[in-house]
């Protein structure tokens, strides 16, 4: 062999041996030569971030429409949204936050022959949502905050019965993030710190109600519109304010909390009148308490609640009519949960809740469901590819038998880089005999989302 052939080979081998001898050599250093190391802007006064979002839904199991109904098959949503966020911290004690979203659903243009109904267009087509807009004054001993915000008081992730402050988002069950599941409202909140304990007092000036499916929605099978008799806002009628007090803290290694809240039933109750279906929102008083406790790799959770003031009235006749007078009753609830950390970046969540009507009468079924109302949730989450890909499976069950209906959701969340994120998922409904899922039957769908952060 000529030296011109084997010398380069030998040189390469020697270089490799040298590299083995010194794994921290030039090759190591060069891998970090262009690392971004700018210091965090932890003390900046103003912080602005934006998200441009594209999201969509494709119905996979919808039936052909009845005459005069909307055709919900196929493309069900195609949204472009802009989500700006602004934080302003003029001093150590004062801070302001605004988080809003402006969105447009193009499905109404792209499928103009689908006979979209006005209430559904109003709910989804062009939306401006003020997710958060609040001003806070913070001291070591107390905090005062006012503005649109969410206060989460429960311990369970999915089946909490301790969330009286913010109404739920229920227009498309099973399709929301945990942090989208509650609607913000204008609150004034004061917190006072007592060692390991926090005393919270809250006054709600705004009376938002649950976001429910509306006439023309694929989750609203009725053929008539509901007349929503929403409560007054606090600034319109001072007597319409809601509010409550909560005490929370750490006791014997358990996080515990208890509260009393006087407000409106966020989902209200239906009344069938000669002029049509009406939804009224009655006053409720809720007492609640809960705890979470770490036990090895598991967080155990327990919740108790008592609600007083739930409205109900029997409904009778072929053309359903509410039989006056509308009466009130009380309801008890309890929930258990377990959040188990598994090996290899995995997690298992189990939750069970029961609501019980102690003064149950058959006439309550039309308004308040059964005497015992059970729900359960099972979720498995696994992260891989250095936490860039998260796979989620979740089942939300109604009742304690297989025939009672389930909502099943599969999701894959892929962080492409710090600027781009995406998600693809599928949700399916097996209504069984669960009234809560009857309206969702046939609404199985694919959903996706792509986000650009800038």
């Amino acid at each position, binding site marked *: 062999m000529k030296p011109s052939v084997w010398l380069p080979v030998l040189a390469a081998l020697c270089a490799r041996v040298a590299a083995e001898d010194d794994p921290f050599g030039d090759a190591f250093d060069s891998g970090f030569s262009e690392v*971004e190391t700018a210091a965090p802007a932890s003390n900046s006064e103003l912080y602005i971030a934006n*998200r441009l979002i594209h999201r969509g839904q494709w119905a996979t199991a919808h039936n052909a429409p009845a005459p005069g109904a909307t055709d919900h098959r196929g493309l069900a949503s195609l949204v472009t949204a802009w989500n700006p966020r602004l934080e302003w911290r003029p001093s150590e004690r004062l801070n302001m936050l605004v988080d809003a979203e402006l969105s447009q659903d193009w499905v109404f243009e792209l499928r103009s022959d689908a006979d979209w109904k006005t209430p559904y267009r109003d709910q989804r087509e062009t939306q401006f949502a003020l997710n958060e807009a609040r001003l806070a004054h913070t001291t070591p001993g107390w905090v005062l905050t006012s503005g649109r915000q969410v206060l989460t008081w429960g311990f369970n992730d999915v089946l909490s019965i301790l969330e009286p402050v913010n109404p739920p988002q229920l227009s498309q069950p099973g399709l929301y993030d945990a942090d989208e599941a509650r609607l913000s409202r204008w609150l004034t909140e004061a917190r006072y710190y007592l060692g390991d304990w926090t005393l919270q007092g809250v006054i709600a000036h705004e009376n938002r109600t649950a976001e429910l499916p509306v006439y023309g929605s694929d989750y609203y099978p009725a053929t008539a519109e509901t007349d929503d008799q929403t409560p007054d806002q606090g600034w319109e009628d001072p007597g319409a304010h809601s509010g409550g007090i909560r005490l929370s803290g750490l006791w014997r290694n358990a996080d515990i909390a208890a509260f009393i809240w006087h407000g409106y039933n966020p989902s209200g109750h239906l009344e069938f009148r000669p002029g049509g279906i009406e939804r009224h929102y009655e006053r409720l008083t809720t007492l609640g308490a809960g705890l979470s406790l770490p036990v090895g790799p598991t967080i155990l959770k327990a919740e108790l609640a008592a609600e007083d003031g739930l409205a109900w009235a029997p409904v009778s006749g072929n053309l359903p009519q509410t039989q006056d007078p509308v009466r009130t009753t009380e309801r008890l609830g309890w929930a258990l949960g377990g959040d188990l950390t598994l090996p290899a970046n995995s997690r298992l969540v189990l939750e069970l809740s029961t609501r019980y009507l102690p003064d149950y009468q058959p006439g309550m079924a039309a308004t308040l469901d059964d005497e015992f109302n059970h729900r359960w949730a099972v979720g498995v989450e696994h992260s891989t590819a250095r936490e860039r890909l998260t796979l989620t499976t979740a089942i939300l069950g109604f009742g304690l038998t297989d025939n009672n209906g389930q909502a099943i959701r599969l999701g894959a969340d892929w962080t492409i880089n710090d600027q781009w994120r995406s998600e693809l998922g599928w949700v399916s409904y097996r209504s069984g005999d669960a009234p809560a899922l009857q309206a969702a039957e046939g609404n199985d769908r694919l959903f996706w989302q792509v986000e650009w952060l800038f």
Partner: protein
Amino acid sequence: MRLFTQAHPNLIAGIAILIAMLVLVCNTAQAETGREIMEQVDAQPSPELMAADMAMTLIDRNGNQRVRRLRSLSRTFDDSERSLLFFLEPSDVRGTGFLVHDYDDPQRNDDQWLFLPSMNKSKRIAGSDQSSSFMGSDLSYADMSSRNLDEWTYELLDEEQVGEEPVWRVRATAASQSVVDRTGYTESVVYVQQSNHQVIRAIHTLEHANERKLMNLPEWEQRDGFWLPLVMQVVSQEGGQTVHRTQLTFSNINLNPEVSASEFTVQRLEQGL
């Protein structure tokens, strides 16, 4: 979109200990065996209070970078090391906070809380699998925990030069399979700087064949009698090929921040950034 609130179950203890890793102290005692050297390393005290900002840069095999920035505060209590951390970037996790009570009693599990700003909610979260990746980086939770000396056997390999500094190279071999199962490592070769007993490099051999991790701490600052690493670099290799890199950069280190014990409570966590 996810049904359940995000907890990153393994995250919290790791971050706390990561911050504690900043704290090393100068010590020039002579040592002869691998075990004695590692006892000197293990014996370093730490400052009681520290605030710092941290940038964590994750680099994939194509050179694409992702950056996480955090603000941290840690303090030594009678029974524990407590840390409070908030994400500053990227924007989708900004304001997410963690509170960790890392107890001295080895029989007592850490207490950890997560704060989710969009829900205004703090929640208790559970402990971790030590061999899991820390925040998607090349560090595992085991990397950021102080090792129990008795769980490893030590052999002084030789003396070398790293730059101008003489170092000892010590091989630490897992003393049992349970240690391998927990940490993911069968052995480590650590480079201990002789002048001050700082570990400035390490080569970790993983349980999986042909996988190893290289760790390098190239920049330090000596302040108030403490040696503080400013940069940490970690490389994951498979079959000799680099598959991922991580660099941690510490800045704005303050050993005397004006904070009280009440800063390390759930109440403070719930105030957010």
